[in-house]
């Protein structure tokens, strides 16, 4: 049998471009970065992204890029299963769909019909919608939920654009969540006081086993140290926390390593989130992916969300809470 590489076309071998955005400067900028890619004109991004019977699992090995303009609603109310960190008017937005990483537990595998990466180039429309809402109320906005925005900063500098857009807008608070080690892509910017850079941290065992293609813990920590040193507000997200053999030791090591290099007093806040996933997403993942300790774990369903049973959940929260509060004041730790 041939090796994996030799039977797949390279990722981003094809770029699908929606009609009407060819002249958008961001489209042009992205296309310039992939001179060898075949450009395919499409009417609507869903013509490719939402084809029936796509195989997400196979597509992950040869992702394509889809450039489009998002129409209709651009901002959504933050879901209950996500932290609002004590903020009112919690919204999220998706400037891109899907991610260049492949975490085993990622809900995107169950949410989207395709593993292809969609980038919406009409960033100005997003900004306008934010400005419209800001006229009525303040906004806490997460812009890197259905993707890892900083990880694709090399393809398109959306994080930088959002940071510049947010700068000085007192009523707007932005969270950019990432597992990347791509801080250097935005390190030239002056830190914005209303932007929080949020890093997801996982034990090395988890990263190696379940967070395919993501940077190792040490690299993430190095990025955090630089960001804090430059004056950025940094959030540490221990989310999702997973339950596996020797999980306690793994998380003890993670937290002690983290605070052995990161000045705890400079951390803006931290979150603990036990693994949880909407029922329908998990169902789809179970159907379409091979046996996995994460996907096929016998979770308990409550209110349409699968998570660990109360006993396991309680143990996880208690453990992480006791580990974290040694370093961070309790009022800065958020639990879900």
């Amino acid at each position, binding site marked *: *049998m*041939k090796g*994996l590489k*030799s*039977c*797949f*076309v390279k990722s981003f*071998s*094809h770029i*699908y471009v929606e009609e009407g955005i060819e002249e958008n400067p961001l489209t042009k900028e992205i296309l310039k970065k992939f001179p060898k890619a*075949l450009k*395919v*004109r*499409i*009417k609507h991004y869903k*013509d*490719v992204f939402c*084809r*029936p*019977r*796509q*195989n997400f*699992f*196979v*597509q992950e*090995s*040869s992702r*394509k890029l889809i450039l489009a303009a998002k129409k209709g609603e651009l901002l959504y109310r933050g879901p209950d299963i996500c932290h609002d960190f004590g903020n009112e008017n919690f919204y999220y937005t998706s400037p891109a769909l899907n991610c260049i990483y492949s975490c085993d537990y990622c809900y995107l595998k169950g949410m989207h019909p395709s593993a292809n990466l969609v980038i919406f180039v009409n960033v100005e429309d997003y900004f306008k919608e934010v400005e419209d809402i800001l006229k009525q109320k303040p906004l806490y906005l997460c812009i890197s939920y259905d993707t890892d925005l900083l990880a694709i900063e090399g393809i398109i500098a959306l994080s930088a654009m959002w940071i510049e857009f947010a700068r000085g807008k007192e009523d707007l608070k932005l969270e950019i969540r990432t597992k990347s080690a791509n801080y250097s892509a935005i390190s030239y910017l002056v830190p914005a006081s209303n932007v929080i850079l949020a890093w997801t941290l996982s034990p090395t065992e988890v990263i190696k086993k379940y967070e395919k293609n993501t940077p190792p813990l040490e690299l993430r920590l190095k990025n955090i140290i630089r960001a804090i040193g430059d004056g950025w507000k940094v959030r540490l997200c221990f989310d999702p926390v997973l339950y596996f053999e020797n999980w306690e030791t793994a998380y003890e090591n993670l937290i002690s390593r983290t605070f052995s290099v990161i000045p705890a007093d400079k951390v803006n806040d931290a979150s603990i989130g036990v693994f949880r996933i909407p029922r329908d997403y998990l169902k789809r993942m*179970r159907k*379409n*992916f*091979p*046996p*996995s*300790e994460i*996907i*096929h*774990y*016998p979770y308990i369903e409550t209110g349409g969300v699968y998570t660990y049973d109360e006993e396991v959940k309680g143990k996880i929260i208690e453990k992480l809470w006791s580990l974290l509060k040694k370093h961070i004041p309790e009022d800065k730790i958020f639990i879900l």
Partner: protein
Amino acid sequence: MFYIVTAYHAEAKPIIEYFGLKKVVKNSRFQVFAGEEVALVESGPGVVASSCATSFLLAEFEATDRDAVLNIGIAGAKNINLKKGDAILCHKIIYHDTKRAFYPDMIARHDMKEGVLETFDFPVIKGNFPEDRIEGDAVDMEGAGFFEAASFFLPPHKVHCIKVIHDYLEGVRVEPSFVSDLIRKNLPLIEGFMSSLESIDCLFSVGLSGKEKEIIDKLAGNLKLTFTMTHQLKNLILFYLSKHERLPGELYDFLNVRVNSKSEGKIYFERIKKLLC
């Protein structure tokens, strides 16, 4: 299994010879040839014929997600950069009549050229039809019908159109032996692509094996498991297999148990649950 749909016998002939296919004697409207790993149908010309033959072949042979289907045939080129005899793997197929477009998933490696195919309901001849109204690099009369039908059965990375450039839309006579030659010369390239598709399928097959499915069915029947419990059992088996190479020996002991009531079955189910968690 690979399924192949051609319009004409001249296109099918070299494929039949190359893969050593034998005629399948069936009382059907279509000519079918099959070997161990390849089955081919000759549809005749046109979108509807291609669509019907594709559906017939895939339904008759009970195609599953593990299979792939190819439409192989000749086409006229609008794009003069394409050479006569070039095999084109189509990354977009437009049905000229409705302007509906189809997109195969371009995942498997190949050494062919790529292009856009446009399917017409009539033969396109330069001079009789304005060239600026042709969007495709190549033109045929079957691709869109084939693709739409095949998409009902298989995932988009398993449905492909491969067209060999025969002319430049000059309305030349189609010479069967020349058509066969064009296809024959490209079969090694096409086989290379098929081999990529096959490797991907082997590497990425998911779910339970036939034997594991049998065990679940038997346990569900013998222990009078409910639909939900059977589903949970399947999930538990997958969970166990994510950590171990094979199922635990003790599970096989449960295969000999037969219960008289659902409540008795529930007790055994709880024991199986403990074993697999």
